[in-house]
């Protein structure tokens, strides 16, 4: 007879997704792909919230994920507008080329 799925599997999956996203943020140079990797990291954190809420029998995890999704949506709107602006100014969104604030 199979038991319930252990919570450690969920947390392990969440950690793996977060780490894959972090690796992408560090290694990729296209700003939009970096942005997508950040979304993946957010999703890893969301999975941890939901798993913890389920484990503790609380609805607060789902509410917290709801707020994270709100922030992610606002972040997507603002961030992509900034990318379009940078592309208009410089003709590229390579994060190595965008060093205007470096002085």
């Amino acid at each position, binding site marked *: *007879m*199979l*038991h*319930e*799925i252990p919570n450690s599997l*969920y*947390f*392990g*999956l*969440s*950690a*793996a*997704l977060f*780490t*894959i996203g*972090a*690796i*992408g943020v*560090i*290694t*990729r140079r*296209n700003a*939009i*792909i970096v*942005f*997508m*990797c950040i*979304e*993946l990291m957010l*999703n890893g954190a*969301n*999975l*941890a919230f*939901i*798993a*913890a*809420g*389920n484990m*503790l*029998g*609380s*609805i607060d*995890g789902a*509410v917290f994920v*709801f*707020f994270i*999704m*709100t922030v*992610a*949506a*606002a972040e*997507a*709107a*603002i961030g*992509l*507008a900034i990318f*379009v*602006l940078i592309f208009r100014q410089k003709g590229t*969104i*390579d994060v190595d080329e965008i060093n205007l604030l470096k002085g």
Partner: protein
Amino acid sequence: MDFTIIDPAFRWVVFLASSLVALFSAIMMVTRRNPIHCALWLIVAFFSLAVIYLTLHAQFIAIAQVMVYAGAIMMLIIFVIMLIQLEKESVRRSRVTGGKVVGAFITVILFLETGAVLYSFPGSAGKASGVSLPQMGSVAAVGASLYGKYLFPFEIASILLLIGLIGAVVLARRRQE
């Protein structure tokens, strides 16, 4: 769908399949060079995560995941990718700089830290258990919590969305000069 009355073997199959798909598509997303391929693989990862949320009794979040992430945010990203004439990432691969070594080290530490959460997890049990949730309805429980205990953060979140909306319009507007 109520997952509590379903055979545990089926839940295991669903969980294992969707988590493997999520990991595979996440790795594909990070490694593909074409941004459109990255975006499509990320959508696959979001859908499989929504299935995992269903196995955790979080129906509302699963639906919101598909609608907000796989629908709205990815549509926006793909739209911007098509708006911007993206050149392929130039091939300057074989550069191992000190920054990358440090970054890899930090990433490994990050993974160990998130894994260590497993073994040091305090917290108290709440009222909504996996057994009681399907009876009262997960979506209803989330709604009651949002409009009761978390009413003020909910209003703040709506103001945040309004600011994001106005900010995006102001930023993307073409200056007339």
